[in-house]
């Protein structure tokens, strides 16, 4: 059974030869440590063009995943050919959704920081991205070619909730949702239409699974009330799931936070949940028992412990996750978020080693 088969078997709620291990994200500094190669964070560091940088970094990530023997790699769609961000004197720049991003040299990645889209009028006036723009599949196709069917490819499609939240700013999004929920509904529907096109394209390009990234909850609960979640966001998520199913792939929702108040609705909609953060009251044993036949579960190894815990704690946490969630299949071992730059690599490796040692089926823990 190769790594891709292991992933697909687990996605199909069957027991593979061993618990599949992966991470939705590995921050570049860890990938550098694992491969010994240097990630390119900005164009200032290289003579390569934008596509060259994408290929270079994808090569590092594929090599990193190969060294870790992970079963699946995340791949994202690219900015289209010819896309030029608006750049500001402080080094920040825009993305296609009007978010202003800041480069973080420590993690060698960018984070949305501010936004150009502050009002419904700004949204109406913006040039809405075209899913079919030439070059959109560049990075994903490159990754698919590099892994050659050995590893599964999880195509990340950013959740409309998160894109809208970031695009309008947290305060703006909440205020507009409160005052003009119909406008937010329209934004979400439009972004969902975009995602549906993207889902078709990424599967045609070779993706094995869709992972909807972007948080919908924080440690106290969903970011918006279950009422809004059920009325506006969940129906649109269902449209994305249907699009994925039409193309024959599973749709997994990633989110941080405490999902317990909206778990039933999610379980009736998506095929799986990533990353089940124990520090936000997500009890994987409970979720497995109640929804394990319907939902593929990914994660629950405490990311906080990866950052601040000891190796022994990680071993214990990993064994717990395997013991309660792996029997019967439908479980992927990964952290309860990603391998942050500030996670201790020795702890991350302890999770992987423990997974290899105790993750062989039948589980004997």
């Amino acid at each position, binding site marked *: 059974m190769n790594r891709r088969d292991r992933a697909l078997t687990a996605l199909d709620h069957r027991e593979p030869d061993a618990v599949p291990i992966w991470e939705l994200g590995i921050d570049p500094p860890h990938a550098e440590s694992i491969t010994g190669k240097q990630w390119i964070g900005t164009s200032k560091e290289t003579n390569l063009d934008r596509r060259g940088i994408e290929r270079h970094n994808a090569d590092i990530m594929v090599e990193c995943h190969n060294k870790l023997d992970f079963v699946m790699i995340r791949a994202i769609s690219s900015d289209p050919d010819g896309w030029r961000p608006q750049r500001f004197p402080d080094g920040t720049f825009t993305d296609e959704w009007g978010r202003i991003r800041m480069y973080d040299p420590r993690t060698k990645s960018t984070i949305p*920081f501010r936004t150009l889209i502050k009002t419904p009028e700004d949204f109406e006036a913006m040039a809405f991205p075209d899913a079919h723009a030439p070059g959109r599949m560049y990075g994903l196709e490159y990754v698919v070619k590099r892994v050659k069917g050995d590893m599964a490819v999880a195509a990340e499609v950013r959740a409309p909730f998160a894109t809208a939240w970031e695009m309008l700013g947290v*305060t703006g999004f909440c*205020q507009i949702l*409160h005052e003009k929920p119909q406008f937010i509904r329209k934004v979400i529907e439009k972004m969902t239409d975009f995602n549906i096109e993207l889902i078709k394209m990424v599967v045609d390009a070779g993706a094995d699974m869709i992972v909807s990234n972007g948080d919908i909850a924080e440690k106290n*609960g969903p*970011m918006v*009330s279950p009422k*809004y979640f059920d009325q506006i966001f969940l129906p649109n998520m269902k449209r994305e799931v249907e699009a994925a199913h039409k193309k024959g792939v599973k749709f997994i929702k990633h989110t941080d936070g405490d999902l317990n*108040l909206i778990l039933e609705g999610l379980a009736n909609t998506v095929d799986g949940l990533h990353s089940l953060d124990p520090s936000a009251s997500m009890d994987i044993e409970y979720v497995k028992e109640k929804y394990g036949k319907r939902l593929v579960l990914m994660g629950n190894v405490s990311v906080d412990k990866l950052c601040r815990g000891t190796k022994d704690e990680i071993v214990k946490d990993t064994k717990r996750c395997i013991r309660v969630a792996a029997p019967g299949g439908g479980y992927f071992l990964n952290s309860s978020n990603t391998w942050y730059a500030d996670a201790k690599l020795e702890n991350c490796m302890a999770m992987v080693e423990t997974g290899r040692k105790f993750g062989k089926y039948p589980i004997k823990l």
Partner: protein
Amino acid sequence: MKSQSALENVERGIVDLVTSEELKARVKKALDAKADPIDVIGSIRKALDEVGERYEKKEYFLMELIVAGNLATEIMNILRPYFKADMQAPRGRVVIGTVQGDLHDIGKNLVAAMLTSLGYTVTDLGVDVKPEKFVEVVRNEKPQVVAMSGLLTVGLPYMKTTIDALKTAGLKDKVKTIVGGRPLTKEYAKEIGADAYGTDATEAVRIIGGWVESKEAKKR
């Protein structure tokens, strides 16, 4: 009595998240009924306390916290002209920032917005704030409280560095320090010498309020 009922309407307006126009009309009604503007601020505080409690009980969510904070801020802006003299002696001064090494600001912004809406003077230093910047601003602005936020573990040592820098500058005993953010624990906050740890925005605001009120009480 008339003004009391109008004040209660202001309080309910924030808790029930009425529209900005509706809340402004309620505030106007209270002021027309000769309510003391200081009592309107009291209504805002009570309302935000209740919103915070509902959030903790999971009856309200992040969205409601933010909307209530926005409403309160709007009303504070309306009331500002009534407090020309008091503005020189605001409820309390807080310096807040995301510590060095960290660019995340959602939690920090939420705390800053809630404090502002409660009538505090908040100096928001932004993200990736170096310890020396905290020291400089504390020295110049003489706040009662320094609030430090961080989402990433890498930022945590800088919380300690900042607290140590305040000590070295002889300022630590003149301010209260509070830290907050996902990777923190109460024990860690204690270990680095912070006076308190806020598990979430509402708790941080409550702790800061407790400090400032007790300082005010001492002055009296």
